[in-house]
């Protein structure tokens, strides 16, 4: 079979999928849920409950505060204990709602049965409304509100929907387990999104290191007779699951600098998002749970798990339930080892996009001492976006915002290939990330000023 891949850059880290055979287990509810209002890209949600209110599982507790924002639902039933700032996993203050859990009484109108509903609603507006009302966001990492992505701006048309099952990050197996255990739901979810986009071509893309997932997808598609679905097998290469890389691999099209995937007719959604869409549309079930991998190189194999967690469970609770932090863990990461964020606050809670609790040993995580850049160009050949990381770092250190923009720092996807490939251990991405933020801010301010000037005319 012809294995697809993106055309430039990329690295080949060991995939370390140690927890691939651990089936999904449901976590019991803790005493207190700590629900963040900033679980999605865009404006944080506004709390709509008050301290002392009784809430039921699945009830709306946060409403979107803008076009790019999403609903937040209560992950358990109980009493609202407090509303106020709490620390997220990087120690920053974000509005949280604390709920003292009393049982698990669900709000009305939610179908909790496990029967598979294969009939796809015809009405596109109904599908989008269900997805919006149930707070579905992209679970591939960026947590972009799904209903916005499935509703392209007038004038642009989706030609291909790509369901992203690449899971190219080492260690992570949550998407893989979803693909194996909830295959039929994923297939139906993909078909629902295909309907919402006007029955376009739909490709479920899976990396070659997940043959079980590919087999169960084939079986489910044969069983359900869903039209218009294809499977694409991708070569194992990081970052194969990057949005723009996936479009390149599957459609052989390149998204222009600063452009959105829809500009080349593509929409990319994660497999877990497909499952969330299935549950939101067919079962009217809000996005209050997701699958998370507890893994790491210093965690014994028998203690590795894939858990179905409810949003708002503190990381410390999950770590405790899984047997505590293992000996020899030097760094705890939420997300994969390439793009994930180090956890500096274990009391922080899980959010919709949480995908892992990763324990890395000193050996795996300690960076080599930095030496001088010798301009070997390995970072430039590893960059899947065709940038020159060594140049970007020099410009960032000099504070040259115009130069950074000319060198397209805004196209960086923060995949970490440059840092991974650097023989001098220069912390390239560390310097590029804030520079990208700065340039993006300048571009946004310029766009806003141009818009204001237009409005004046």
């Amino acid at each position, binding site marked *: 079979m012809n294995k697809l891949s993106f055309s430039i850059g990329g690295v080949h880290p060991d995939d370390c999928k140690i927890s691939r055979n651990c089936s999904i287990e449901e976590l019991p509810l803790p005493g207190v849920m700590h629900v963040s209002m900033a679980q999605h890209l865009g404006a944080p949600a506004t709390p709509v409950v008050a301290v002392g209110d009784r809430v039921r599982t699945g009830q709306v507790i946060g409403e979107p505060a803008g076009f790019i924002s999403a609903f937040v639902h209560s992950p358990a039933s109980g009493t609202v204990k407090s509303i106020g700032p709490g620390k997220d996993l990087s120690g920053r203050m974000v509005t949280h709602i604390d709920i003292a859990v009393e049982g698990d009484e669900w709000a009305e109108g939610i179908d909790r049965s496990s029967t598979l509903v294969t009939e796809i609603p015809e009405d596109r507006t109904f599908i989008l409304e269900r997805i919006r009302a149930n707070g579905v966001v992209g679970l591939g990492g960026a947590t972009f509100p799904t209903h916005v992505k499935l509703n392209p701006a007038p004038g642009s048309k989706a030609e291909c929907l790509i369901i992203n099952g690449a899971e190219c990050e080492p260690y992570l197996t949550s998407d893989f387990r979803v693909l194996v255990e909830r295959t039929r739901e994923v297939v139906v979810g993909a078909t629902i999104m295909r309907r919402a986009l006007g029955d376009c071509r739909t490709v479920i893309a899976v990396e070659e290191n997940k043959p079980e997932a590919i087999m169960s997808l084939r079986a489910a598609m044969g069983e359900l007779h869903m039209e218009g679905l294809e499977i694409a097998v991708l070569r194992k290469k990081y970052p194969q699951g990057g949005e723009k890389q996936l479009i390149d691999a599957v459609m052989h099209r390149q998204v222009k600098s600063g452009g959105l995937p829809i500009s080349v007719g593509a929409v990319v959604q994660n497999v877990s998002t497909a499952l969330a869409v299935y549950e939101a549309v067919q079962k009217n079930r809000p996005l209050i749970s997701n699958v998370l991998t507890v893994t790491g190189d210093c965690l014994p194999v028998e203690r590795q798990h894939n858990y179905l967690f409810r949003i708002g469970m503190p990381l410390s609770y999950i770590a405790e339930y899984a047997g505590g932090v293992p000996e020899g863990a030097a760094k705890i990461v939420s997300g994969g080892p390439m793009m994930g*964020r180090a956890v500096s606050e274990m009391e922080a809670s899980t959010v919709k996009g949480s995908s892992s609790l990763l324990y890395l040993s000193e050996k795996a995580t*300690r960076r080599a001492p930095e030496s001088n850049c010798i301009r070997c160009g390995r970072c430039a050949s590893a960059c899947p976006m065709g940038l020159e990381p060594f140049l970007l770092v020099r410009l960032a250190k000099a504070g040259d915002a115009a130069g950074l923009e000319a060198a397209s720092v805004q196209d960086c996807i923060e995949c970490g290939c440059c840092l991974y490939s650097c023989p001098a251990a220069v912390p390239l991405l560390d310097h590029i990330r804030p520079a990208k933020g700065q340039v993006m801010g300048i571009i946004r301010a310029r766009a806003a000023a141009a818009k204001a000037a237009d409005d004046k005319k």
Partner: protein
Amino acid sequence: MNSIVLWTVVILSSLGLVLAVVLYLVARRFKVEEDPRIDRVEAVMPGANCGGCGYAGCRAFAEAAVKDTTLDGHYCPVGGTPVMKQVADILGYELKEQAPMIAVVRCNGSCEARPKVNEYDGAKSCRVVSALYAGETLCQYGCVGCGDCVSACPFGAISMDAGTGLPVVDERKCTACGSCVKACPKGVIELRAKGPRGMRVYVSCISRDKGAVARKACQSACIGCGKCRKVCAAEAIRIEDNLSYIDFTKCRLCKKCVAECPTGAIHAVNFPVLKKKEAEGE
């Protein structure tokens, strides 16, 4: 042989002469009329080109000052009043006296007072750290300690104290150009009046956390209790977001607040040692 040398000298000299005349004529023709005062002002400037005045360098400052009709808004923090007096003399403008300023580090979270709860392993840059996360301690406001201010200072006036992990400003070298203020991503450094004989009182903390949270993160944090405001006769202290701030334009340096502060967050520097203590010492 001799003729070759002779011809070479003659041709090159005449070529030089002709080109010199051409250059002279061109220079006359395209001469840019410039206010001669710009050169004179630039000559008295310190020549550090630090940008502390808000212009790209000393020349840009001189141009701007000459173009304007007053000296309002034009001030060289490096040269201070003596230089500005010379500038005013050259231009014939009136000079408003400005109190000399100095960079003040408003964080007292030493390694001892503010224990680390995690270890940072990335690029050694305050800017990078603060873009990534809240920092190695529980205080998300205070000094990160990677020394962006040290490398930003054009006068070498800032150094990191290895014991406390905090930057130290050398009062003799600091010119209050403000480079460190711009470089600090946390806004820890502030330009404050230097004070008579360098005496000044300031709150050495910028944590906006609630008292209990701030105290848990750092023993010498300002907890916003308001005791200092109560004892201040000059009404120089205001409390906003759980943080006390002393307005240096109103402060009378009575030091009552220093004694009152329960966490020692208020610092008084360069005050002479009390006579009573000296007597005790003897």
